[in-house]
């Protein structure tokens, strides 16, 4: 199909990126100054892209919704970042990282992209160290590694339990340097509300100044979207309160295809839900599964007693504990990929073995404490333990943690080609907001790798390749009619929401949507459930547009309006997720259709019919249309994922 | 608002340097005061005072010291003003964060110490410079020396008979005073300016009189009100020092994980021992 040309370069897998770089077009330094690049989002992908493009000499404008670029939710990533450095000499290589990522993604990712990711992974670590990122080190003074889910080698670099924070601060510092040098201009507390497309190319954005409520127009020769994922469609997730898929939806509505929306990652180790007032779920890093053992009681009556508070975890003798991951997957044990660990927890809880509220399993450190000593465990996970204790009021050194899966990451996103360009020329998408590298399931410590790979080492090349042809185009004044049109659309949308003056608050509706999504489009999906979900989502959508109640202050900080605007877009996305899940009659990675499982309850892929990327095209006033990009595995042998 | 255009850390370093000098001076002053406790009729104490009052190097240091005090006060006050300006709208609920002992009250304890210093200057330093009336001391041997010099002059016929008679009269009067005053045979002590005139006549300058700090101190320390003020001042000084000493080390970057604990303990010891050394003197005087 002509519209979905993934533009994969020629050559063998390991030569593709080299070939691309050798033949891409460049812009000379004098011209770079004349070219405007808009970057939306300041997470790992956005900040690193803006910093790198600024350092090259382009005129960069970077936008974020928070008060500072350092607040982006990349900061919350805990465990680590993968790279094929093979420092521990345990058999790692670029090929191995590539293979693990493809396999972890359940053979639903594009080979060439993933190989490039593995290739540049090593540069990321070098880059970060040069920025002063304080990665953990051994007594030798060299970098330390730990292992993560879905891998049999130790390739994860980490900075205590705050790797995302340190990497983001590294990118933020690089960005700060460019801001000081004047090549990057920073605009904080601005939310992108619309994309401006002129003559088929992305030419600018409309933002809303969240403090004054003013709408502003910005021109760019190209626009880079790095706005993260849409996990908050589920309301309760490990995402930040402000994380949203709104900008991506705006682009989708302007013609960018949205790929694989149903691939939503449910993270197995989160602090369980307590009550209705709860606003978010807190992740407990996957790295905990290095030393923690997951179990539930073997006997139903023990589980019952624990739930009723008659027994505690410590009352259950060793022989009555069911370490179900170790039992089911002896080869990978507690370190199976996330989707598998999540489903296994759900399976045990559904069978009645859950603890806590019934929707929780134990993550136990007693054997690690016995083996390594409390100090060593504290050194590795101290801050996570403290975090848990503050929330749960229980000491994880003494009683096992209670955890349960929660929405964490979205593998789906804007469809991009090899250059990370969407179907709208001049609109690029990087990081979690594109769909490209993780297939149907992302491995732990790979999101940081992908965000930084896109920003530091991919976009600076591919954006330049695009801009090389743009040197002939003068900046378009923001008085252009397309800017008028785009701004009017936003004005209209805001006016409409404010005019409803209904009775239901945004949070109430968002929670309702979340319930529907978790219930029917969550960990285990069925055809009936999905078919039920679609009208339910439609119902919430209708109630939103007829009964939402939003605080009316338009010219000052108004978080309610911000939330409402995002919810409007999330409602759009919710039905797209459900639609995509319905369409995909197979189980793969994070997408588990209960109809499609093996007798042992494992996911059953259908490579014959579904080895493609489902990219959705928005149709005004009609149902979206799906386009297929077939996945051709030339270099890897497609197998059934097996972690036993 | 920046009243002095220097980096904030530079200003702090200056305050710290001035403070450090004062910290070094304090033990010397304390040692001097402790001489009062010696049961020698004030001999040691007077000797120290004499040395301090007459040595030129010490005099130079005195000026430096005074400047230190002044600049320490002026600078900290300016910093305080600047720091207040950094929070134009204050909190409705007073701050309840845990802070280093004494640190919140430095400007107040410092101010009170300043008030005490003025009192102290009036009592001692100004007496020395003659700005206020004090008590004075004259050495017996000085008087004897002066008389024998004069007697020698008379014997050699350089002086008239009438002078001789006048001298004898003067000698008698001083000797009479001496019986009353020079109990230990070494000093005529605790004399007011009036006493000096009465006993030594117009030529009092010849006898090299000096302020009688020993008796001035002992007299003051017999005044319970003064003792209370004095002791309170040293409690306040202790509070000031509890933070001040650590603060100097911190400002000069001399604290680190390895020995900051040791420094903190040393600071506490210093902040207690020094004021205690000062305080012990009036306690002993008033009680024994």
């Amino acid at each position: 199909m002509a519209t979905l040309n993934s533009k994969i370069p020629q050559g063998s897998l390991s030569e593709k990126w080299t070939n691309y770089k050798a033949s891409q077009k460049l812009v000379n330094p004098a011209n770079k100054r004349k070219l405007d690049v808009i970057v939306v989002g300041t997470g790992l992908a956005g900040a690193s892209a803006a910093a790198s493009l600024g350092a090259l000499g382009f005129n960069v404008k970077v936008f974020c919704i928070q008060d500072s670029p350092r607040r982006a939710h990349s900061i919350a990533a805990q465990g680590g970042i993968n790279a094929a450095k093979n420092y521990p000499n345990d058999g790692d290589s670029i090929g191995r990282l590539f293979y693990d990522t493809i396999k972890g993604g359940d053979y639903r990712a594009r080979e060439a992209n993933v190989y490039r990711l593995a290739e540049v992974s090593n540069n990321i670590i070098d880059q970060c160290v040069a920025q002063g990122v304080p990665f953990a080190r051994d007594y030798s003074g060299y970098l330390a590694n730990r292992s993560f889910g879905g891998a049999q080698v130790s390739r994860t670099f980490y900075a205590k339990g705050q790797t995302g924070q340190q990497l983001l601060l590294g990118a933020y510092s690089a960005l700060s340097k460019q801001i000081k040098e004047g090549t990057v201009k920073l605009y904080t507390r601005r939310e992108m509300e619309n994309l401006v497309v002129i003559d088929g190319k992305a030419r600018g954005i409309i933002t809303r100044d969240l403090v004054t409520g003013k709408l502003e127009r910005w021109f760019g020769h190209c626009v880079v979207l790095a706005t993260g994922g849409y996990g908050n469609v589920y309301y309760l997730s490990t995402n930040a309160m402000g994380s949203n898929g709104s900008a991506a939806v705006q682009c989708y509505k302007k013609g960018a295809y949205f790929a694989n929306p149903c691939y939503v990652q449910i993270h197995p180790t989160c602090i369980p839900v307590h009550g209705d007032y709860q606003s978010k779920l807190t992740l407990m890093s996957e790295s905990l599964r290095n030393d923690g053992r997951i179990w539930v009681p073997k006997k139903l009556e023990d589980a019952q007693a624990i739930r009723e508070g008659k027994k505690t975890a410590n009352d259950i003798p060793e022989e009555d504990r069911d370490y179900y991951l170790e039992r089911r997957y002896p080869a990978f044990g507690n370190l199976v990929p996330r989707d598998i660990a999540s489903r296994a927890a759900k399976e045990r809880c559904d069978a009645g073995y859950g603890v806590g509220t019934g929707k929780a399993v134990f993550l136990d450190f007693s054997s690690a404490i016995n083996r390594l000593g409390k100090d060593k465990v504290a050194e590795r996970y101290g801050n996570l333990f403290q975090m848990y204790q503050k929330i749960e009021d229980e000491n994880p050194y003494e009683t096992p943690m209670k955890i349960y899966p929660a929405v964490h990451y979205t593998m789906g996103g804007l469809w991009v080609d090899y250059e990370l360009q969407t179907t709208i020329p001049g609109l690029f998408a990087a990081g979690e907001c594109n769909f490209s590298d993780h297939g149907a399931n992302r491995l732990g410590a790979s999101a940081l790798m992908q965000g930084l790979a896109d920003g530091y080492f991919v976009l600076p090349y591919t954006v330049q390749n695009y801009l090389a042809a743009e040197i002939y185009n003068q900046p378009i004044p923001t008085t252009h009619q397309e800017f008028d049109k785009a701004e009017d659309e936003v004005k209209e949308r805001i006016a409409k929401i404010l005019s409803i003056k209904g009775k239901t608050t945004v949070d109430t509706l968002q929670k309702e949507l979340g319930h529907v999504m978790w219930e029917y489009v969550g960990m285990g999906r069925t055809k009936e459930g999905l078919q039920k979900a679609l009208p339910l989502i439609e119902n919430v959508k209708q109630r939103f547009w007829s009964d939402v109640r939003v605080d009316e202050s338009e010219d000052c900080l108004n978080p309610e309006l911000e939330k409402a605007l995002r919810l409007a877009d999330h409602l759009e996305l919710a039905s797209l997720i459900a639609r995509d899940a319905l369409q995909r009659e197979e189980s793969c990675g994070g997408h588990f259709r209960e109809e499609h499982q093996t007798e042992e309850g494992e996911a059953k892929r259908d490579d014959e019919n579904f080895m493609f990327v489902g990219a959705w095209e928005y149709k005004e006033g009609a149902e979206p249309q799906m386009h297929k990009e077939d996945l051709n595995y030339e270099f890897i042998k497609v197998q059934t994922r097996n972690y036993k | 608002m920046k009243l002095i255009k220097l980096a904030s850390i530079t200003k702090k370093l200056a305050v710290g340097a001035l403070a450090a000098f004062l910290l070094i001076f304090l033990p010397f002053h304390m040692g001097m005061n402790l001489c009062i406790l010696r049961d020698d009729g004030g001999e040691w104490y007077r000797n120290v005072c004499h040395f301090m009052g007459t040595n030129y190097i010490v005099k130079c240091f005195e000026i430096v010291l005074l400047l230190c005090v002044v600049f320490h006060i002026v600078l900290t006050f300016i910093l305080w003003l600047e720091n207040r300006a950094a929070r134009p709208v204050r909190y409705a609920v007073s701050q309840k964060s845990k802070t280093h002992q004494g640190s919140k009250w430095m400007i107040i304890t410092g101010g009170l110490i300043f008030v005490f210093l003025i009192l102290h200057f009036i009592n001692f330093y100004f007496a020395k410079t003659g700005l206020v009336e004090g008590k004075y001391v004259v050495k017996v041997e000085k008087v004897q020396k002066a008389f024998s010099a004069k007697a020698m002059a008379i014997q050699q016929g350089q002086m008239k008979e009438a002078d001789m008679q006048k001298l004898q009269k003067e000698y008698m009067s001083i000797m009479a005073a001496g019986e009353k005053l020079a109990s230990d045979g070494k000093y005529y002590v605790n004399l007011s300016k009036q006493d000096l005139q009465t006993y030594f006549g117009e030529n009092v300058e010849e006898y090299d009189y000096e302020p009688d700090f020993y008796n001035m101190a002992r007299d003051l320390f017999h005044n319970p009100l003064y003792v209370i003020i004095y002791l309170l001042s040293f409690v306040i000084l202790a509070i000031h020092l509890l933070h001040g000493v650590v603060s100097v080390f911190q400002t000069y970057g001399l604290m680190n994980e390895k020995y900051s604990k040791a420094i903190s303990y040393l600071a506490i010891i210093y902040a207690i021992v020094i004021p205690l050394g000062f305080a012990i003197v009036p306690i002993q005087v008033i009680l024994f």
Partner: protein
Amino acid sequence: MDLTLKIWRQENAKAKGHFETYKLTDISPECSFLEMLDILNEQLINDNIAHPVCFDNDCREGICGMCGLYINGRPHGPDEGVTTCQLHMRRFHDGDTITIEPWRAKPFPVIKDLVVDRSAFDKIIQAGGYTSATTGGVPDANAIPIPKHKADEAMDSASCIGCGACVAACKNASAMLFVSGKVSQLALLPQGKTEAAIRVKRMVKKMDELGFGSCTNTFACEAECPKQLKRTNIARMNREFICAKVCSEEK
């Protein structure tokens, strides 16, 4: 539990603010502080009492540094080593009156209600809180070994989340702990050493320019820092500053 809230309300940066009192009933002790405020806002909207209370928050897991409320005289409230979002209502008692104020400091002007503008922190970082390595062309990550204790210490210094509690807690509204965290991190690592002297001078200068107070070593910052950055960072920065002024030949 039932609570009385006294909350600072201020329409915008220029408006004059005041305290408003609200009552809340039946709050679960398991609720987080910000969730309690969510409940309040839900009530304010539903009952049409007032505009909802604006407060900054984002990740709600204590790492983004967005949230920051001055609760009963302490930044981030009565718990140690937590951000406001990690504070739970079990730290309060039934019937308590809770006074909530925004951060108060000249460089942190109030934008609305409890929201303040902390872009001053960004400006300090922009003044020099980085190594000048641009993308690409850097040596292998293991080319320079770094002693473990130094790397660990750098990590501790780097764990600052830029929430501003140190400024809010300091009686002088000093930003020394924030600045010293970054200065320390980069001064401890060989990669940051190259520019250490110029960095500390520039960052301190910017900090002063922005109107933060100076440090009087009260260490309230250390007591309130949700990430428990240590005062030794400030000592290290002072040391770096002296070295930069005295030993460095760079102007």
